[in-house]
């Protein structure tokens, strides 16, 4: 072993050098993120006026606001969550409470993990051919919401599973020995304790839905309407789709920044609330 070369830089110095380098790279990453957020908010927030939020768009979005778009986005997101939550929670309950680890559970988990890796454009294609065409929903909140629900499902399953597993096993046994049936022990003891974790997963799912573009463009449509959507079968443009159109067509820099600011703010709010919820959850179990 050549000790000669190695003694040029002592291990202690190498340690310090590498430390600095690594921390610098970390700092760069954080700065990039900070830059993105600050950039968007700085240029967009001034244009997020009450008018912007409450008025319908005019002149292809060059003027006016995004009110119908906000309603449409909320509709699609809430619908997606309304479908994904029971489905995902049910799967998680079944996996943790009613089965042991075996080939079947591994298969289900493989399904969920794979689904999590499927890119959004594929979901868009699928949603288009399945919901819009085959099931005949047309470009609609229904089609968009269902597609997003499928996209968000793995997230809900995973976080719900972890939340349920985190509930101490003793609680279940105690409930049973006090005269609860299996279902009662789940509903009255396990789920209430797991609730913060489950809700966190749902909130994160909402965040994902709001940011989605490729999957909704082909399912909920991209038509820009003046009126608020009134039925599940109405098509709608979501905020991210609207933003995309504004940016790509160069329609209006102001409105684009404003839309971006609203998007980024929503993500921040969602992530922060999910995080504080998780912390309260963890603190409860010390």
């Amino acid at each position, binding site marked *: 072993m050549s000790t000669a070369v190695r003694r040029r830089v002592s291990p202690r110095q190498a340690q310090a050098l590498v430390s600095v380098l690594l921390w610098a790279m970390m700092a760069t990453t954080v700065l990039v993120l900070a830059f993105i957020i600050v950039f968007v908010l700085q240029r967009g927030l001034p244009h997020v006026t009450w008018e912007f939020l409450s008025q319908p768009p005019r002149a292809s979005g060059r003027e006016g606001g995004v009110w119908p778009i906000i309603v449409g986005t909320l509709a699609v997101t809430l619908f997606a969550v309304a479908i994904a939550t029971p489905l995902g929670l049910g799967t998680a309950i079944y996996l943790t409470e009613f089965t042991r680890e075996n080939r079947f559970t591994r298969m289900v988990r493989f399904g969920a993990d794979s689904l999590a890796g499927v890119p959004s454009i594929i979901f868009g294609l699928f949603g288009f051919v399945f919901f819009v065409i085959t099931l005949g929903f047309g470009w609609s909140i229904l089609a968009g919401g269902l597609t997003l629900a499928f996209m968000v499902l793995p997230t809900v399953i995973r976080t719900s599973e972890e939340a349920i597993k985190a509930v101490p096993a003793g*609680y279940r*046994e*105690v*409930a*049973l*020995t*006090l*005269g*609860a049936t299996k279902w009662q022990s789940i509903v009255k003891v396990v789920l209430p304790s797991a609730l913060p974790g489950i809700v966190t997963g749902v909130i994160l799912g909402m965040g994902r839905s709001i940011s989605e573009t490729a999957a909704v463009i082909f399912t909920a449509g991209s038509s820009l309407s003046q009126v608020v959507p009134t039925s599940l079968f109405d098509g709608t443009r979501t905020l991210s789709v609207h933003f995309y159109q504004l940016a790509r067509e160069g329609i209006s820099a102001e409105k684009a920044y404003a839309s971006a600011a609203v998007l980024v703010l929503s993500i921040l709010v969602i992530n922060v609330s999910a995080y504080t919820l998780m912390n309260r959850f963890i603190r409860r179990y010390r």
Partner: protein
Amino acid sequence: MNAPAKLEIRNLSVRYEDAPPVVRSVSLAIPRNFIYAFIGPAGSGKTSILRTINLLSIEVDRAKVEGEVRLDGVDLLTGKIDRARIRRKVPMVFATPQPLPRSIYENLVFGPRLAGVKQRARLDELVEKSLTAAQLWGEVKDRLHQSAFTLSGGQQQRLCIARAIALEPEVILLDEPCSGLDPISTLKIEEAMESLKERYTWLIVTNNTKQAARVSERTAFFLMGELVEDEPTERLFTAPRDSRTADYIEGRFG
């Protein structure tokens, strides 16, 4: 002992997965209103028997069970048993105190509510009676709505006993209830058992032979899944019939 046994176990065998049985063909009878102790080294099967009596071993541990466990003559191991109802009659207190993440009051009324008790007055009454019986009432009566986690270990365990009492049960199972507790808490629990002997039948699994000697009227000694000896406590501890019992009691192994 001419009265019929409260709990009768006949040829009970318990095994997990494909392992050899942890309980081998055990038979014994537990009279009503007795305090009965199971002693023996770790792995002797005493906890498995306990958990089979309230059907936890079958439901939670996936144990395979043969034989009979009869409560007042009714075999609990047949298929058509309402497990929840049985467990209300035969609740269990675990080795580590396990309060539910709720207030003291809510911990106590959890079971009765499931059993259908709804009136506030009745629930309050149950709470006071069971806490008094568990020798805890004085210490917590002014803070019933605080979280159960604010209690000390010994208090939590007494809470768990009160929880069992609140169900108005028939047999109370205790699985090494004092293993983590200080001597004062242990004493309080033993006093509670003694004072409640008339109302319930107590079955206590313990690693502490001195405790068994103090508290129980009859003791069964288990070794490697077999029932070695089953005698009135005083006789077991002073003149055991089996040499293995004598060895265990005198600490030659454990």
